């Protein structure tokens, strides 16, 4: 079974530029998550989708971050304009549905460096 796919794996941009990350969840998984992991910290949820609807985006910095999952399958996370503090790994994850006991599967992450 294919896992969660993310691209690009690595990206270096200058501050104030924009960047987009793509995620394809495991087939059949209704719930998709974007997490931000800053070096030395645990992942922090940015946004959670159920199919094509947003369930939780309370911690998404909406002045610069946006995410969509238009057809309820793959998703894009965009940052515009980027700041130095956005340097982090952006992890996409998916689960079968919202049930709390379901395993959440993570992709390998997209590493962003803002210079």
């Amino acid at each position, binding site marked *: 079974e294919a896992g969660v796919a993310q691209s690009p794996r690595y990206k270096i941009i200058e501050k104030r530029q924009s960047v987009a990350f793509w995620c394809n969840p495991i087939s059949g998984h209704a719930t998709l998550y974007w997490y931000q992991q800053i070096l*030395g910290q*645990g992942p922090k949820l940015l946004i959670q989708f*159920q199919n094509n609807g947003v369930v939780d985006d309370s911690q998404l910095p909406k002045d610069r971050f946006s995410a969509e999952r238009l057809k309820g399958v793959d998703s894009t996370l965009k940052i515009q304009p980027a700041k130095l503090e956005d340097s982090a790994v952006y992890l996409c994850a998916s689960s079968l549905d919202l049930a709390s006991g379901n395993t959440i599967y993570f992709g390998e*992450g997209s590493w962003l460096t803002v210079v």
Partner: protein
Amino acid sequence: AQSVTQLDSHVSVSEGTPVLLRCNYSSSYSPSLFWYVQHPNKGLQLLLKYTSAATLVKGINGFEAEFKKSETSFHLTKPSAHMSDAAEYFCVVRENSGYSTLTFGKGTMLLVSP
């Protein structure tokens, strides 16, 4: 509200000796608890999970964890460390109330020496 505290930022063991990574949680509802491992430049891999069934949970690669409600703990153990166990380990809580998100601890880096 839910939270997780991993009591050690780093744990060092010798190969072949036991591993103990400590985790305490706080949750307003009965929780699901998970341990994930992250090897360098890799994504997060699930080691094991507790979802209100047996309190002693066995995971992959010889790891296990015991859910202790009275102590609000979910410590991760392994009888004998291997060099390949060197990685960062995250304890994670998720409340069993409607939907809820994962809350991660800050992680424990496990160092294994020969």
